[in-house]
């Protein structure tokens, strides 16, 4: 029994670290312009396609070694997805800065429909896949069962933590990060002090998209398959993670992602895997009822 428990723990940790990466996009955008970016899940979905396309292209040019493949894919996917993030912000959200409160939300829904249908039309509705890149696993006897950790999972954990650590460094110690934090605290004051807040908002969308792209590459490596609808469910789950950790808080998003990933894996291992999505969504509702500010967030104070 505890073999299964440990196994699900590890599965949950890998899944959760990826949720955390996507949740960063939600939490940063929410922190800075107070808007739920519904299209973020779709950005992740696009990045999964980009990862598969990049792998296919690299394989076509005869690149076989794992480090080159993964490096090429990561750079390609992150750059192109970041351009997507920037374009979306530019087209659909920037003209709505001073509009009604609902306008950016509805525009985001529109963008997410556009991206879904765009991927479906250009790539076909069927499931797509990528070959396994890293073969092999590390096994360990535990109690009456055994625990298996594939090398892919280890790679995902390492890559996700490197990504998060890099982002934390950028936000905490660089000029760009300081600008982001200032804009988050008070947009008007930041712009009075000479920060180009429009540009900072663009940067935030780019960072969010880049993190989603990293997640896209990692999830695609782990599961091997995806389709044009994949962004929807993962998007809601990543949002749940962001809310769980406290929306607007960067460490909260990572923590929330990991907790959600572990909870979901344990639920599907111990109870029922058909209802694991139902479990995650119910968790979201429950968090919003009992602790809307999340684990690490500050209570929301409405400003006039």
């Amino acid at each position, binding site marked *: 029994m505890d073999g299964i428990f440990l196994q699900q723990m590890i599965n949950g940790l890998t899944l959760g670290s990826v949720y955390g990466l996507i949740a960063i996009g939600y939490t940063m955008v929410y922190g800075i312009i107070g808007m739920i970016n519904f299209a973020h899940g779709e950005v992740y979905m696009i990045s999964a396609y980009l990862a598969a396309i990049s792998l296919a292209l690299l394989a076509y040019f005869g690149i076989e070694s794992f480090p080159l493949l993964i490096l090429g894919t990561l750079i390609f996917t992150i750059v192109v997805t970041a351009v997507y993030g920037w374009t979306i912000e530019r087209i659909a959200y920037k003209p709505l800065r001073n509009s009604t409160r609902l306008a950016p939300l509805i525009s985001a829904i529109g963008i997410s429909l556009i991206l879904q249908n765009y991927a479906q039309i250009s790539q076909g509705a069927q499931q797509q896949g990528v070959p396994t890149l890293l073969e092999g696993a590390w096994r360990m006897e535990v109690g009456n069962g055994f625990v298996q950790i594939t090398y892919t999972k280890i790679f995902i954990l390492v890559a996700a933590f490197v990504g998060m650590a890099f982002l934390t460094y950028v936000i905490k110690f660089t000029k760009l990060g300081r600008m982001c934090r200032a804009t988050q605290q008070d947009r008007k004051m930041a712009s009075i002090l000479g920060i180009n807040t429009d540009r900072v908002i663009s940067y935030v969308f780019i960072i969010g998209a880049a993190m989603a792209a990293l997640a896209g590459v990692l999830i695609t490596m782990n599961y091997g398959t995806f389709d044009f609808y994949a962004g929807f469910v993962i998007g809601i789950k990543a949002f749940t993670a962001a*809310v769980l950790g406290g929306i607007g808080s960067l460490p909260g998003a990572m923590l929330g992602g990991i907790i959600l990933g572990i909870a979901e894996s344990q639920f599907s291992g111990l109870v029922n895997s058909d209802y694991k999505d139902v479990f995650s969504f119910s968790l979201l509702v429950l968090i919003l009822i009992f602790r809307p500010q999340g684990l690490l967030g500050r209570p929301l104070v409405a400003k006039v």
Partner: protein
Amino acid sequence: MSAANNNTIDIKKSFVDAILAGLISLIVFGPIVGVVLQGYSFNMEPMRVAWLVGIVMVGRFFLSLFLQTEKGLSVLQGFERPGSGVHVLPPDYKSRLRWVIPLVIVLAIIFPFMANKYVLTVVILGLIYVLLGLGLNIVVGLAGLLDLGYVAFYAIGAYGMALGYHYLGLGFWTVLPLAAVAAGLAGCILGFPVLRMHGDYLAIVTLGFGEIIRLILNNWLSFTGGPNGMPVPSPTFMGLEFGRRAKEGGVPFHEFFGLDYNPDLKFIFIYTVLFLVVLAVLYIKHRLTRMPVGRAWEALREDEIACRAMGLNHVLVKLSAFTLGASTAGLAGVFFASYQGFVNPSSFTFFESALILAIVVLGGMGSTVGVVIAAFVLTVAPELLRSFSEYRVLLFGILMVLMMIWRPRGLIRISRTGVTPRKGVAP
């Protein structure tokens, strides 16, 4: 946009804009459109990319040129003006609609005698979406709450009909009010905890709720039949059935009234009841917007903090809108189930919610006439343009974004007659 270069058109700038847009679109469209995955390998489609990039460049060039003209500048400034809200009419203004409404009712009465079955079913579907649009319009348009799982309440109504018949033997007329109550109750239970918080959370919770309902319907094989769905009985009129022969020795409708048998009778009946329900909902909504609760909805939409400072109970006001919207969707669900004769979870995906939202957005937040027109346009147009069905979702998405940029309050302006204070009343 400075006044200095008002009259000069800088073609070089437009060229630079177009080339930049082309580069960006090459990066954006290049991989996804140009490289089509096939298993683990791929096919190149460079022509599609070239077309798209070309369109974007030409479009950006002309847009850039247009925005440098006088007219373009005025359009640009028009975008930036917020709060172009409700249009107030003089107090004694009489709407032209008072001539249109009786005309529409007369047309609607004549209509079933003229139409064939296909047209009738399309119109029934249109009316169902009118009902859904009206319900969501209360939630999104009037109260300003974004409900992305609206289809869940629709599903509760439809499955209420199927399950009610299957397990309890309930008929159309019993389920109709019950479904409205059940959907309203579900809305109440879901809305109460969430509505206490910041408004945007509601959007994501309802999105999750819509997905929960669909997943349960899909996975609970023993109760709901899973993806195979469930049959729904035809409605009856005072116990009279619409089939050629009634079961268990009953008398079918056409024999009772001495009519010839008409296989479309069931649809004509659904159409009639549905039309009456739509009229009733229209009337109720019309009255509600003029009652204190309707005013409170709109006031909360415009400024929540001010409303709370004035002593409005924001949770109850929002909850009433959310519940009313949900129960309308429940009604629509019953009609949908009876009309189809069959329900399954694939009718209740997120896309349906998005379609209903598109109806409300296109029709104008809070405008009733707009929603009715938009519902018919968005449900009838796909029937006419079958060959474009692949691009339907794409068009809806583009429509939503453009509407939000161009006219966030909808195509049809909300107008309201002003009031003159009565004489003798202290100002």
